[in-house]
């Protein structure tokens, strides 16, 4: 028999002889492979989503929004900019009423394209693009999925009447419904053909593609310099959009990628450790074979093959299950972000994950086998060096004549047994600790999300309504029963003077703004005095502002405010690009700044009464819609994915503990056999393994809590700070839940391994 065939035969024999252990290893590999594939689907799929979307849609390098202008005027300004490859103009009409398939919305965004059919910054996923004629409409994929639209469906548009759905599109410059407003595309030439050409067609959005995107900053400088006369200007660059979309998805993407990476590390460690442990168990057998002439290479190949034979089906199963569990919710998230699902693009990375799940155990078996087979045969024949591992422990001085004691009994013995393998104990504790920290983080996050959904106060908005009334009406509004406080809320769009492309939502109140809006203070203090500002954390991070530095706010008309930054707050509005300033500072340069009366309701106030009173005053009251309200579906998706990750992580914990218990039983077979011979039944083995499990779980739990509260939680909170205040330190409830979970997992591991060990004939252990 040739050497490879012989090695294969040896591998198969090994599998047959240790079927149970092979199954156990296989389960571990499957779990690790599942983790890998979850990481791939989430990390690769979501992480590259924006890039794929922009490539598919040909996202412009700059998107400029402004107040409606004559198209030729805008075109002339754009044509004067350097480095422009091409541009497209459109009119973005908001609050359009739409209806289809029994659904209706009044807040849709209509993108009226000046020149449809050309590259417009969106990708047509199915159907076809708009033309110059016809009552056609392109519907955004997110809206189409949510409403169950099909090609050819009628689509009613306020002001235009019934149109026809001719295609579905994804435009990565904004998030999709339901995360964002429902969006659809129309062709201006087609509308003109239907309704007659407009006398003075307007546009309010320009998409610009550059020949050399590296020259973006220079182009923005020129664009800014020639933008005088345009109002409400917002520049959005690709990187800016990326940030916007990533932040619109909240911390989800970063969080999930981070989590999946942690899980990935855990899985990798686990695989390598179990492979090594396997070899450790078989040192004697390796020695015997070496003694009879087997070569090092032969034994290494045999071990590797054995591990591979187990890993192949296990990895396949794991990758498949992990992928299936996450592909659907990840896909829903991508649709919401207007990013195409990776589909076949995932095949490559998943294949790599599968390969890793196969190769790591194989290498993890081959390498230690290679090393072990290189040791002197006599050492190998002495078997696992358990006897010497206890060496180094000092003799305990007992008091002669005193009654002997077995401190802690079987439980303590079990702990001592598992502690004899220090390195492996450390790795197992680390794995479990990391997983526990992980699950704690997931729980903390999940509970925070719930609080986000139910407590708008967590986002800092204290006013419930705004009323479109002049500032002078504030006093009258305050007198309405049920109104606790009312004040004019001024809001203008500004820009930072030194960094084009950053637009700032400037919010000003007379007096103390925290009555109406109090986003959590990240650093510094609340603003005092007329020349101070509180800036959103997103803005502060982007511009390097801290308390004490100077914010130069350029308002759209070119005037400028200089204010001292008093503190940094976290705010969801405008992705954290917000500045709170005193009304006195704003009204100086902008006496006609737009405002509405913000209304804080008294606790228990009847909202409808207040609304009615406001309407009588002539206002059009608008309830506050927090970003959370928009994000409910996002939170749902996040929960689903978190659940999947948590389950996988729980399996990792289970596997690690089962592995540790099984290895303990395996390596201390003679001791267990003697104990059983001496009358110890399943109960005795359970106590022994309980001690082993305790020795692992207790420090792991401590490490997990400390890691979560000290490192992971703050790190993720920091990641999310421009999106929301998410205190992610696990609370007592979460910690108890995880401890209970660990205890349960330990119990399951202990009992299952004990039952399994009790089934083995005692004499087999004695024969070792």
């Amino acid at each position: 028999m040739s050497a490879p065939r012989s090695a294969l035969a040896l591998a198969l024999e090994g599998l047959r002889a240790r079927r149970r252990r092979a199954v156990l290893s296989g389960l571990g590999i499957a779990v690790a492979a599942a983790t890998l594939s979850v990481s791939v689907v989430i990390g690769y799929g979501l992480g590259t989503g924006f890039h794929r979307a922009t490539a598919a849609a040909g996202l412009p390098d700059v998107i400029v929004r402004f107040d409606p202008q004559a198209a030729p005027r805008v075109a002339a300004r754009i044509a004067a900019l350097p480095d422009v490859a091409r541009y497209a103009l459109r009119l973005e009409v908001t609050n359009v009423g739409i209806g289809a398939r029994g659904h209706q919305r009044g807040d849709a965004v209509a993108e009226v394209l000046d020149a449809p059919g050309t590259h417009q910054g969106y990708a047509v996923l199915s159907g076809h693009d708009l033309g110059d004629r016809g009552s056609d409409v392109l519907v955004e994929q997110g809206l189409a999925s949510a409403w169950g639209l099909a090609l050819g469906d009628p689509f009613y548009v306020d002001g235009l009447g019934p149109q026809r759905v001719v295609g579905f599109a994804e435009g990565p410059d904004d998030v999709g419904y339901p995360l964002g407003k429902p969006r659809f595309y129309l062709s201006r030439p087609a509308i003109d053909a239907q309704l007659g050409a407009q006398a003075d067609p307007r546009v309010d959005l320009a998409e610009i593609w550059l020949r050399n995107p590296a020259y973006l900053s220079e182009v923005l400088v020129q664009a800014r310099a020639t933008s005088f006369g345009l109002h409400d200007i917002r520049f959005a660059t690709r990187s800016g959009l990326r940030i916007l979309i990533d932040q619109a998805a909240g911390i989800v993407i970063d969080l999930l990628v981070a989590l999946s990476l942690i899980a990935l590390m855990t899985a990798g460690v686990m695989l390598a450790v179990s492979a090594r442990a396997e070899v450790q168990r078989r040192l004697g057998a390796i020695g015997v074979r070496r003694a009879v002439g087997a070569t090092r290479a032969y034994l290494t190949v045999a071990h590797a093959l054995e591990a591979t034979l187990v890993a192949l089906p296990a990895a396949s199963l794991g990758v498949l299950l992990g992928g299936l569990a996450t592909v659907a919710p990840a896909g829903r998230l991508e649709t919401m972000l207007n990013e195409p699902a990776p589909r076949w693009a995932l095949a490559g990375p998943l294949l790599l994950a599968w390969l890793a799940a196969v190769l790591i155990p194989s290498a993890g078996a081959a390498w230690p086998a290679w090393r072990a087979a290189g040791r002197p045969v006599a050492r190998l024949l002495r078997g696992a060096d358990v006897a010497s591992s206890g060496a180094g422990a000092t003799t305990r001085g007992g008091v002669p004549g005193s009654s002997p004691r077995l401190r802690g009994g079987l439980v303590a013995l079990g702990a001592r047994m598992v502690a004899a393998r220090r390195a492996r104990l450390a790795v197992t504790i680390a794995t479990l600790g990391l997983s526990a920290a992980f699950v704690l983080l997931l729980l903390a996050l999940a509970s925070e999300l719930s609080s986000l959904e139910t407590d708008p106060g967590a986002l800092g908005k204290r006013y419930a309504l705004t009323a479109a009334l002049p500032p002078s009406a504030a006093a009258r509004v305050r007198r309405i029963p049920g109104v606790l406080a009312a004040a004019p809320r001024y809001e203008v769009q500004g820009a930072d003077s030194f960094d084009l492309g950053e637009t700032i939502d400037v919010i000003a109140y007379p007096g103390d703004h925290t009555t109406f809006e109090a986003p959590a203070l990240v650093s510094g203090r609340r603003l005092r005095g007329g020349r101070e500002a509180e800036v959103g954390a997103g803005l502060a991070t982007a511009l390097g502002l801290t308390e004490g530095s100077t914010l130069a706010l350029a308002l759209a008309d070119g005037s400028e405010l200089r204010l001292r930054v008093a503190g940094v707050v976290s705010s969801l509005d405008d992705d954290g690009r917000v500045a709170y300033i005193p009304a006195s500072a704003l009204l100086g340069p902008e006496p006609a700044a737009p405002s509405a009366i913000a209304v804080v309701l008294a606790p228990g106030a009847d909202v409808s009464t207040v609304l009615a009173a406001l309407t009588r005053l002539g206002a059009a009251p608008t309830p506050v819609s927090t970003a959370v309200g928009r994000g409910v579906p996002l939170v749902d998706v996040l929960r689903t994915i978190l659940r999947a990750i948590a389950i996988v992580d729980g399996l990792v914990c289970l596997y690690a503990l089962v592995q540790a218990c099984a290895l303990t039983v395996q390596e201390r077979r003679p001791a267990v056999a003697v104990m059983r011979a001496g009358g110890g039944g399943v109960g005795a083995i359970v106590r022994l393994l309980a001690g082993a499990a305790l020795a692992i779980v207790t420090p792991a739990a401590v490490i997990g809590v400390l890691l979560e509260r000290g490192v992971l939680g703050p790190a993720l909170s920091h990641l999310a700070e421009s999106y929301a205040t998410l205190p992610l330190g696990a609370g007592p409830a979460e910690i108890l839940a995880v401890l209970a979970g660990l205890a349960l997992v330990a119990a399951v591991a202990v009992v299952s391994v004990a039952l399994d060990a009790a089934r083995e004939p005692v004499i087999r252990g004695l024969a070792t």
Partner: protein
Amino acid sequence: MSGRIGRRAFLGRAMAGMGAAALAGCGAGGPLPAGSGSTLESTWGDPTGDGRLRVLAGEPLIARAELSAPAADVGVLATFAHLTDAHVLDASSPARVPFLRRLGPPFTSTFRPQESLTAQVLEGALTAVRALGAELVVQGGDLLDNDQGNELSQARSVLAGGIVTPGSGPHRYYGVQLASDPDPFYYRPDVDAPRHPGLLQAAVRPFLARGLGLPWVPVLGDHDILVAGELVPTPVTRALAVGDRALWELPPGLTLPPGFRLQATSSPDGPPAPGSVHEFLIRALAGPTVRVPVDLTRRQLTAGEVVAELRTAAAPTSTRTGDRLDYAVDVGERVRLIVLDLARRGGGSGGLVVAGQPAWLAGQLAQAGGQWLIIVSHQPLAESAAGGELLSLLDRSPQVLATLCGHTHRNRIAPRATAAGGYWQIETASLIDYPQQARALRIVATAGGGVAIRTWMLDHVGYGPLGRISRELAYLDAEGGRPQGFGGGRLDRNVVLYRRAAVRS
């Protein structure tokens, strides 16, 4: 191309060559621009349209036969250079209205991102002119930008040679382009892309000008005698120039005067509208101002003072005295330049033919004899008030070879066909706006008694990065020469303009 190269010209070329080598050493790799600045050898261009200028191959001369069939050269008659609209500028002067630029044309000349580098660009242009080996240089008007005394003295220093100290005031630069200025409508080199930290300090560092070293003749432009090229100095503007208050920001709520329409025109200065600028000034002064250091050298000059200084600095043959710069000067034996002063003494940027000028021109035309005549003015005759009358005179003269002007800041050459044989109308780009070029002209006699003008553009060359930065900023400027096509087409730059022999009626 002339084979005669004087020692001076050779040294000039060598210096420029070394300078270019030094420039290349600190710049990106790639082909070097020609040390002579001649666009026959190399040009600056952006073939990919990505906003970056690169050195490209030179543009060979193209024959233009609209007026006459090409004929063989038989000898050079004259070589001279036309260098116009340098707009040597004091960027720290409080008598400026940079905030008007954002309103759009016709105010785009009130601020330019590269405006602190005008003295250096002029020096670079002179370097190229020296390399040309010309007999004479026509300084085509708008040598100054804002009718200030220190602008004129700096320009004279560059032309004469010696130490040039750009800027004014104790800081030398204290203006709207400072990094501390939060106004995003100004290009601030320390913070805006393309970033050039320290540019403003470098721009006002004294430098040694070599001097033109050639005879030069002046033409009077609107910016030479009018504030912002529009306004006769008033007590308000005079006080502003030597005062301590500057207008940097657009006064809030400032809008265009009723009835005033923004319009693009062929010249950055637009149609004459001194009243509008004055009105803006008054309203702006009522708004926020910035305290700046005083410098009395910023004194605004009268037209007479400017004319006298130019006459002194240059060496024209003046056949008209007084405060007008109408004169004639010979270049070689066969070519005469007739220089017309069309600057409005009463304000307004456009050209104005005053009483007596047609008669004087007619007299000059009659005296021409066998010389070929080139009529030089700052503003194009066709766009000057009553300029048509002068054009009619030129149309009847068989000796008129060309009109030569600046003011439009663009390269443009158009034939004007007449019964008398026709002539070429040549406009030369400015040194301040892209393409920042001067023009070389070589008059050659052709077989059959005709004549040809060989003309090509000259890029300024320097031995430092400031010239390159100025060109880069000028190119990027979305309100500057690039989008407005000031560079002209191929037929407006390096061409041979044929004209048949004069037929006297």
